[in-house]
């Protein structure tokens, strides 16, 4: 299982990368949308974990460009959200995201089950 984690916050990037690697998941990380899209040119993950509010290109830009490149729906995308982002989640779904993860309420088993189910489809 290979995951591309696109997240500008160093705290979350390090936390989630470490937790996923503990489960033997291969993780590549990008620190903004632009870098994430660049990595998608050479790296084909089974799933993308995508933050929404980021510099350079935000999560919506990434979803739009992934769709233009026909990477959606081929590669499932879960967006990272936190408290107060209900509108953003809805917008991300409209742009092709398959669901969301509340990144502030860490429940690894739930996240892992979700990742496996999407990665296997």
């Amino acid at each position: 299982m290979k995951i591309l984690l696109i997240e500008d916050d160093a705290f979350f990037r390090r936390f989630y990368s470490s937790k996923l690697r503990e489960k033997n998941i291969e993780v590549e990380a990008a620190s903004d949308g632009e870098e994430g899209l660049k990595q998608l040119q050479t790296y084909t993950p089974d799933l993308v974990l995508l933050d929404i509010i980021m510099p350079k290109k935000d999560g919506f830009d990434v979803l739009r460009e992934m769709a233009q490149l026909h990477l959606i729906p081929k590669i499932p995308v879960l967006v990272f959200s936190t408290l107060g982002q209900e509108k953003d989640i809805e917008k991300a779904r409209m742009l092709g995201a398959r669901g969301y993860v509340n990144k502030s309420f860490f429940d690894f088993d739930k996240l892992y089950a979700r990742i496996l189910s999407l990665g296997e489809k």
Partner: protein
Amino acid sequence: MPLSQDDQVKYKALYLQTARQYIDELQKNLHQLIQGTEIDKVIDTLHRDAHSLKGQSLMMEYKSMGTISLLMEKIFEAKKENKSELPEDILVKLDEASREMSDCLNIIAQTSKEKNLSQAIESLKAYANITI
């Protein structure tokens, strides 16, 4: 699900380091706004910093830090979307709140507990246009 005690200990130093960077950047950009520089890029950065600070504070279960960051995020979001302005009285309150947050981080570093931020939270609630 609450973060395990082991993870809270393991990630506390990283939280303090990144949260301090966000607060320093918040203060620097707020001072630019107070001095009259109002550019979209500054508002974007303030919004992102408050958003990131909110997420990681809530994850570490520093609820007051998370709440105050959420209020800041909503204030900057409304400005970004041209739904409100940022007059000087709000900027002063935001600056005061950022200093309270900075003090709070020092207390977390020493005791792992938060400072009481209720006064700063109340002072921003009226401007954030959300119910907490």
